[in-house]
């Protein structure tokens, strides 16, 4: 079992992860981070921790932790 963790302050809302996610588990939210970006959120019940978001993210937002 693994879990996906997001560092919302690093997100610049490029949405590369949103378009790459095969489970449509990621989306940008209404709130802004301190950089002024609509950061990305995950619907945990949809996510299978495949890691594609980690691969395409230019800003190191994602971490997958094995449990």
């Amino acid at each position, binding site marked *: 079992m*693994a879990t996906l963790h997001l560092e919302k302050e690093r997100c610049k809302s490029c949405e*590369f992860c949103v*378009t790459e996610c095969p489970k449509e588990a990621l989306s940008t939210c209404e709130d802004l981070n301190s950089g002024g970006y609509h950061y990305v959120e995950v619907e945990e019940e949809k996510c299978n921790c495949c*890691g594609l978001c980690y691969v395409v993210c*230019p800003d190191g937002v994602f971490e997958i932790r*094995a449990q």
Partner: protein
Amino acid sequence: MAVARKIPKIMEEPTAFCAGCGHGILNRLIAEVLEEKGQEKNHILILGVGCNCNMNFTWGGDKLQCAHGRATSVARGAKTGRPDTLIISYQGDGDAYVIGLSDTINTAYVNTNVTTFAVNNTNYAMTGGQMSWTTIPGQHTTTSASGRDCESTGNPIKVPEIIAQNFDVAYVARGSLHSAKEINKTKKYVRNAIEAQLNGEGFSLVEVLAQCPTNWKVSTVDANEWLKDKVVPIYPLGEFKKREGRDDK
């Protein structure tokens, strides 16, 4: 099956690039390979002038800022002085292929045991998106407002092909960052280039086609499509000079 993944320590400081810029992805690929090879404290990143200057404030390893275009020449000097240290020049297309073309070609000509990563985003991004020698035909930039006219400005320059076809170097490849699949392929090229230097095989060059939504004047998501549909057909991907005896890498 899920695999634990975390950005390398070298990348812990958030990048200073624009949203959707490919530099951040390449930064991570290089940092991952350095970590895998145990080189995170045994490398010097030789920085050219361009958007990559932002790495002066974020890259967690040793680095050196060079005068415009001189990164590969500085890398040669650094390798001479510190032959046991991994020496990597990190440059943009304007730095490595235009103002620094002579330095890049000379480094390939003498086959110095250093590695160059050249980020090709088809424009001079840091200065506001002027036309570069790598700008694709018809591309609109601030200095080719009607679209690049190749009859009067020349055709896009393909330095990896020039070097692979003319010089006895260790490894030459071109990758792209427009999808997870191509990013994973590009990481293999990055790994090969660094391994070539670690094995003392000679000069290695990897050109990386990267998104520049800010200067392409497209959305970040559209930049990936733009890269795939318009840039990749001009600049073929793959390995142009494979490492000897390692065709399957």
